[in-house]
């Protein structure tokens, strides 16, 4: 196994993040987001960089695109045997990478465009599994690979999207995966400065599940309680990093509990009780109910996150804004970043620049009909 040894030092945290969305669904190359995140190089320390991109696989948009990372060749066969048993694989290919001067040792990356195997899925639709969807099926496939098959991790598993991440500065990771060759209507990027957990390829951001992707600056002090909460619902935390719980919590709240983005953000970063008391009666009742029922899904600690999904991008900070987040708009493109300069680096004259208020989600959706 060439898995990086845990990186045990504790350092001062200062990750950086950047994201952009074109509301018309116009796809742009990975060059801009790379320039943007490279502008905040000093927020990271070379131990993690990564990107999520939406709209990159239009030719296979009906298939789940599994990006899988293998520590070594020997781990490929067991995963492929498992995948062939449970999924129909339309296409599989090595994710193109290039040799760079800085990234010498790296895992093997292969992508599989697949869908649940008809026979297996029909089994899951039997009476005792009533209501199980293709998405549920794929979540169990991802969890099985991450939890039970050694030396392999699913980096992303959504349709028409993918995550690219590793150990290095983000501009190095972008070069390594040749991201200028991909075109996406949503990009998020992360520059990592690992603090409490190891810097390894699987631990770089974004963290994903189905089409959810999370990049995160800060630390989730409530990781323990969040992990216990989400594990009760069948999710398995395997990536040694606090941020992965956010992806699973979002999947649970929005896809399974059918919650709105706004409500899910209220669960993650709820108002203080004294502020809830000042709300109008209806809002007060609803917010109290969310805090009461989903108290264990609340994220405590300093954070700013960008949440990507097929139809939009959301920026959210903790309730007292212990991590920076700035937004800008130019025409139909919205930018979100840890630093204004990294937006200006790719959008020199935005129509407007603003700082989201603590705990207030900035929810940007694709225009209706763009992604149908």
């Amino acid at each position, binding site marked *: 196994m060439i898995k990086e040894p845990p990186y045990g030092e504790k350092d001062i945290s200062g990750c950086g993040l950047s994201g952009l969305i074109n509301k018309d669904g116009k796809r742009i190359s990975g060059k801009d987001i790379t320039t943007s995140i490279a*502008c*905040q190089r*000093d927020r990271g320390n070379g131990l993690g960089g990564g990107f999520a991109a939406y709209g990159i696989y239009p030719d296979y948009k009906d298939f789940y695109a599994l990006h899988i990372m293998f520590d070594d060749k020997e781990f490929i066969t067991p995963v492929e045997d498992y995948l062939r048993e449970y999924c129909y694989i339309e296409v599989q290919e090595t994710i193109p990478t290039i040799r760079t001067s800085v990234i010498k040792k790296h895992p093997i990356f292969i992508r599989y465009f697949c869908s649940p195997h008809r026979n297996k899925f029909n089994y899951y639709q039997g009476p005792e599994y009533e209501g199980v969807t293709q998405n549920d099926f794929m979540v169990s496939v991802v969890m099985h690979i991450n939890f039970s098959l050694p030396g392999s991790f699913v980096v992303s598993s959504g349709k028409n999207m993918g995550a690219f991440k590793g150990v290095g500065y983000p501009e190095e990771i972008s070069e390594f995966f040749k991201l200028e060759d991909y075109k996406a209507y949503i990009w998020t990027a992360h520059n990592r400065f690992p603090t409490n957990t190891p810097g390894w390829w699987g631990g770089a951001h974004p963290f994903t599940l189905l089409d959810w992707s999370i990049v995160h600056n800060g630390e989730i002090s409530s990781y323990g309680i969040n992990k216990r909460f989400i594990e009760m619902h069948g999710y398995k935390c395997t990536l040694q990093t606090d941020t992965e719980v956010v992806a699973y919590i979002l999947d649970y709240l929005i896809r399974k509990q059918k919650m709105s983005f706004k409500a899910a953000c209220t669960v993650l970063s709820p108002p203080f009780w*004294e*502020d809830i008391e*000042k709300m109008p009666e209806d809002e007060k009742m609803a917010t109290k109910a969310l805090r009461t029922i989903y108290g264990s899904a609340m994220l405590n600690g300093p954070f700013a996150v960008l949440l990507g999904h097929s139809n939009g991008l959301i920026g959210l900070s903790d309730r*007292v*804004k212990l991590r*920076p987040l*700035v937004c800008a708009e130019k025409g139909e493109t919205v930018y979100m970043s840890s*630093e*204004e*300069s*990294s937006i*200006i*680096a790719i959008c020199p004259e935005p129509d*407007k*620049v*603003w*700082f989201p*208020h*603590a705990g207030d989600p900035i929810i940007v959706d694709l225009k209706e009909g763009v992604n149908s």
Partner: protein
Amino acid sequence: MSATIDTTGVYYRDLNQQIRDMIKEGKKKFTLNNVNGQRYIGTGIKGEDKEFVLHGVPGNDLGAFMQGPTIQVFGNAQDGVANTMSAGKIVVHGHAGDVLGYAMRGGKLFVKGDIGYRVGIHMKAYKEHVPTIVSGGRAGDFFGEYMAGGILVLLDIADKKNDKNMPITGNYVGTGMHGGEIYIRGKVEDYKLGKEVGKVPLTDEDKNKLTAICDEFCKDVKADSSKISLDDFIKLIPVTLRPYGNLYAY
């Protein structure tokens, strides 16, 4: 005496080294063009005869630990401007981010537009060293938190086009404050104030001081001072000297 540097793509360490080398050669005035994200510009530089004019968006910790120089930013500024600055002046002709003037102990920071969270926290004064921060816009939460000295002024006269809904100040104004004074042009609900501060009327001395500060600010950032009436201000000062004096002495 003066130097112009095109900072396009220049890494912050190289830029700051270049500036320091030029200061050793006797240069005093610097014009930096195309600044974008370079950190620590002006940090630790001494001497009232040094002047910096920045075009663009400088990176975090602009003018940290600075002792004397003047910095003009024609653009917006990010987080941590004037961190622990002890003398000099920084004028930002746009908005600025969070944690401005952290533990500042002298000099002036003028921001034409809005300012972020935790501005002026841990600020302190000693004799004639009275740090002053003025914003022509509005501030986020924790304005003047743990403030021990100095002057904070919020004018709310700036253009609001980027954020129409932002109130003049957020929550926890002056929480833990035990020195200094905060002037806010407008109304602030009592629940937004820290338990350690109270509203008091402005004295004639306060009004003279505030007039001088506002005049200097409006001149520097080219703002319209006619909107400012001294009758519209509230003044916040700490109401107890040692609010937690008995915390560990029960």
